[in-house]
C-alpha cells in the first residue's frame, strides 16, 4: 500500500470558490481532509477604528461595506443601535419600509448564495438563473434610493426617502413572481441528482457543535435549532408579521441549502403583509441636525442574512462614537469550518465553503 504524507494545501486567497479573499489552509492525507484553518485579514479596512473619527450619521455608509450583499440589514442594525442610545422613536411607516427593504435584501443575498453554490458545484447555468432574479431586487433598490448594492437607504430615525408608488407596485410584482421563481429553482437545482448527491450527508454540523461554536443564522437553523432574532427580539416592526422559521434536520450541506430556499418564501410572505398594511405617515423622525447621544453604551442585534449581527456602541456625549464594536456573524460561523471539512474529500471542501456562506467584507471588517 502506498504511503502518504500529510500535505498542506493553500486554498485562496485568490481561489474562485472561496468567495472573496478567504484563505483556507487545508491539511490533506491523500485526498482526505484532516484539518482546515481559515486565515483572514486580506480585506481588513479597520471600519471600527474609522467610525471613531466620524459622526454617527457619517458612520452609516460604512456599514454598507461590511456585508455588501445585504447592505440594508447592516444599516438597520447600526441605526437601531444609535436610536436605542439616543432614544429616538421611529415612525411606524418607516419601520414597515425598513422591513420591506431588509427582507428584499435577504432574498437578494440568498440569491447570491444559491448562485455561487451552484457555480461551485459545476453548474455555471445555475448562477445565471439566480443572478437574473437578484437583478430584479437590485432594480427595486435603484428605484427607492438610486443605489443598487451599497444602499445607505436606512438612516438614523427612519429612511432616506418615502417609498414611491412605483416601488410598491414593482415590489408587489416581484412578490407575485416568487412562487414561480422557487418552482423554477426546484426544477433546475433541487431535483438534480448530482446536486443532491454532492450535498446530502456531507459536512454535518450537529446541534451540539452549532451551539458550541456560537453559530447563528441559517447555519444554526439548518442544524435544527430554532434561533432567529427576528422572532426572539421582534425588533422594529417584526412583531406585527406572521411568519415561520424553516428548520433543517441534521445540519448537512443539503439542509443549509433547503433552509435558505424556504427562507426566501417566508421573506416574501413578510413583505406581502407589510405591503398590505403599510401605514401612512412620516418616514423620518425628528432627529437633531447635530446628533449627540447621552453618555453610555448600547448593544443591539438584528438578524442579517448570515446570522446575529450586533452593534455595541459607546458614547462619550460628543458627536462621534467613542467606540463601535461589530459582532459579525460570518467570522463566528467560520469557526465551524474545521469540523465541517474534517473527514471529507477535498472536493467537498468547496461545498462546505459555499454553504457556510461567509462574506469576507464582514469577516474582515
Amino acid at each position, binding site marked *: 500500500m502506498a504511503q502518504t504524507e500529510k500535505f498542506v494545501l493553500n486554498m485562496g486567497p485568490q481561489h474562485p470558490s472561496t468567495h472573496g479573499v478567504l484563505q483556507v489552509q487545508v491539511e490533506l492525507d491523500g485526498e482526505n481532509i484532516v484539518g482546515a484553518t481559515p486565515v483572514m485579514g486580506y480585506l481588513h479596512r479597520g471600519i471600527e477604528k474609522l467610525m471613531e473619527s466620524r459622526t454617527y450619521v457619517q458612520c452609516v455608509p460604512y456599514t454598507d461595506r461590511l456585508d455588501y450583499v445585504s447592505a440594508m440589514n447592516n444599516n438597520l442594525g447600526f441605526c437601531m443601535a444609535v436610536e436605542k442610545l439616543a432614544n429616538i422613536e421611529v415612525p411606524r411607516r418607516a419601520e414597515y419600509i425598513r422591513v420591506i427593504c431588509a427582507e428584499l435584501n435577504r432574498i437578494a443575498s440568498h440569491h447570491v448564495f444559491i448562485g455561487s453554490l451552484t457555480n461551485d458545484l459545476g453548474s455555471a447555468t445555475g448562477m445565471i438563473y439566480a443572478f437574473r432574479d437578484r437583478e430584479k431586487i437590485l432594480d427595486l433598490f435603484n428605484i427607492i434610493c438610486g443605489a443598487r448594492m451599497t444602499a445607505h437607504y436606512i438612516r438614523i430615525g427612519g429612511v432616506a426617502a418615502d417609498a414611491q408608488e412605483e416601488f410598491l407596485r414593482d415590489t408587489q410584482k416581484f412578490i407575485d413572481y416568487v412562487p414561480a421563481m422557487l418552482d423554477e429553482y426546484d426544477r433546475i437545482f433541487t431535483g438534480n441528482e448530482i446536486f443532491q448527491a454532492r450535498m446530502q450527508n456531507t459536512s454535518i454540523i450537529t446541534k451540539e457543535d452549532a451551539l458550541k461554536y456560537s453559530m447563528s443564522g441559517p447555519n444554526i437553523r439548518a442544524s435544527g435549532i430554532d434561533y432567529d432574532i427576528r422572532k426572539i427580539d421582534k425588533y422594529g416592526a417584526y412583531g406585527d408579521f406572521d411568519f415561520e422559521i424553516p428548520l433543517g434536520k441534521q445540519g448537512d450541506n443539503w439542509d443549509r441549502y433547503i433552509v435558505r430556499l424556504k427562507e426566501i418564501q417566508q421573506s416574501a410572505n413578510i413583505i406581502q403583509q407589510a405591503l398590505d398594511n403599510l401605514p401612512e405617515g412620516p418616514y423620518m423622525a425628528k432627529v437633531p441636525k447635530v446628533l449627540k447621544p447621552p453618555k453610555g453604551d448600547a448593544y443591539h442585534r438584528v438578524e442579517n442574512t448570515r446570522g446575529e449581527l450586533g452593534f455595541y456602541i459607546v458614547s462619550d456625549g460628543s458627536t462621534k462614537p467613542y467606540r463601535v464594536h461589530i*459582532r459579525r456573524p460570518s467570522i463566528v460561523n467560520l469557526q465551524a469550518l474545521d469540523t465541517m471539512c474534517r473527514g471529507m474529500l477535498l472536493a467537498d471542501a468547496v461545498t462546505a465553503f459555499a454553504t457556510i456562506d461567509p462574506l469576507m467584507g464582514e469577516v474582515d471588517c
Partner: protein
Amino acid sequence: MGTYFEIDKLELLKAQFDTAEFDAEANEPAIYIGKEQLLDLMKVLRETPTYSFDRMSCLTAVDYKEYFEMVYCLYSRRFDKWVTVKVKLDHDNPEVESMTQIWEGTNFEERETYDLMGIKFLHHPDLRRILMPDNYDGHPLQKDFVPLEPRIEGGVLTWHKQKSSS
C-alpha cells in the same frame, strides 16, 4: 424583546462574589467584577439552571485611556434574558482569563480583541493575530495608536515606526 436580568438576582450574585458591583440606580446595570473572579462568575451564570446564560452574544474591549474594559453581553435562550458583565483591566498589562474555557465559540472574537486591542487572554488555545499581519507591532484600536509605515526589505513586507514629522 428580551428583558434585562432582575435586580434581585444581581443582588444574589453580589452576595456570592465579593468583588461584584453594580449601579442599582441605572436602567440596565452591568455587573462589574474583579478579573480574578470573572471565570467563576461566568461559570455560575452559565451553569446555574435558573440563570442558564448559554450564549455569549458580544465580546469586546474598550480603551478608556486609564484602563481597559472588557464587555461581555450574555443571553439566555431559555429565559430570554440579557446581562452585561464588565471587567476593568490594568492599562499596562491587560490580562484576563479566556472565555473559551466556557464558551468555545469565543475563540475568534478573543483573537480579534487580542489583535486589535492588545488584551492577553490566559489559557486561550491559539492566541495569534487574526486580522493584522503577523509581524505587525501594535494594536490599532488603542486610543494612542500611531500607524506603522510599511516598507519592503529583502522582498518581505516589514513595519516601521514613523519618523516624527516636523
